[in-house]
């Protein structure tokens, strides 16, 4: 049965959606440095994993050149649901902004 629950967006998820919307794809540490200290390197991958479960982002391992050593980085990009969630979040934040004023 299809879930009837509306998808939610936490503050950190909204920030990641904003950062990913401005670029084609990014890796975890790139998001941390672009956030200006608002994302932490110990938690960003957990948040990204949760967002992948929700369907907001998709990820793939980068293709490494032959002879390269080490683990391949995981690159994250926005899905169409993530894009719509970001737009909806922006509308909700704008409409309810007076509540926090």
């Amino acid at each position, binding site marked *: 049965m299809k879930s009837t629950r509306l998808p939610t967006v936490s503050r950190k998820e909204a920030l990641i959606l904003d950062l990913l919307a401005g670029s084609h794809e990014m*890796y*975890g*540490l790139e998001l941390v440095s672009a956030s200006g200290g608002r994302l*932490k*390197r*110990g*938690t960003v*991958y*957990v948040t*990204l*994993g949760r967002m*992948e479960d929700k369907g907001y982002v998709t*990820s793939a391992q980068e293709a490494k050149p032959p002879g390269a*050593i*080490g*683990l*391949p*980085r*995981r690159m994250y990009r926005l899905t169409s649901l993530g894009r719509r969630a970001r737009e909806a979040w922006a509308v909700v934040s704008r409409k309810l902004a007076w509540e926090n004023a």
Partner: protein
Amino acid sequence: MKGEPTIDRLPGRWLRGIAERAASEATRERVLFPLLADLQFEHAQAQGGWARALVRARGALAFWRALGITWMVDSGRHLWANAWGTSAEEARATKRLFARVGLGVTVVSVLLLGQQYRLLRHLSAGGAVALLVPSVVALAIPIGLLFALSLGSVKAPAERRRARLWVGAVSGLATFAIAAWLTPVANREFRQRVTGILAPESTGPLVPGDREMSFDDLAARSAELHREGRAQEAARFELEWHKKLALGASCLALALAAGAIASTLKRRLTRCVAGFAVVWVAHALLRMGEQAADAGHLAPALAMWGPVAVVGVVGLALLRPARATAGRAAKMSRRPRPARITPTTTRIRPI
């Protein structure tokens, strides 16, 4: 070339080994390996020894933090999904035990409250019996647990043993919460109401006694008396503080004792008598310990935890041989019978 990363000098190799041992495949692929990949990339980009050492340290810190978070989230999910047990058999056993313990606690509570109600009715304060419910339930949980578990099934497979400990732990937590925070408030209100009936001329709130203080109040009062150099008076409050904790822990000890009774005694009547004996011995030890601590002959912690430890250790000691006997019996029943020698199977071959 000097300074170029090689397989041996790649940072995060040790952490990768830990991830492979300590985390699930999903956690590794989605959280820990991307973190380590970024650490290796950042390390390769860093200029100079200090910068690389800093990258390593920050990466290791982030790794442990991520591992801790995922471990907590996964454990929480696992507990939520398997609250009753990890298998259908265990879930059934746990539900049955909880129902039986609930029944046992209700019966013991009704018996204890009925006695109090008869006394209070003479004082025209029958309604105040409701305020005694928390203190009665805090006592009834360990007793009800002991009888419910010891009068249950004789056979104790692994699922039921785990369920028994699980029920003991939950009952212990419930007992502790009731004794630590609910009972003191209800006791205070009860004394206030009964004093209002017996001595209507007395006005104002009464000074709370040691049994009317919450867990935190008792600790604060005891510390205050110690500071004033009144250690003998502080013992009374320390005793009550330890009693609340020991009452909760007694559920686990009694669950062990109940397991020993259920697996060593066959007849229900004998098990019932043994249950009464355990309750009586534990109660007598607690009373003796309390009096000795009040007189300053025994440390409050020892007075309260000693009887719990005695019941737990004796229960565990009796449970071990019973389990070994059950294990031997099960092994015997599984062992194939020796083949019967018949004239057709014993042929003598010519040399």
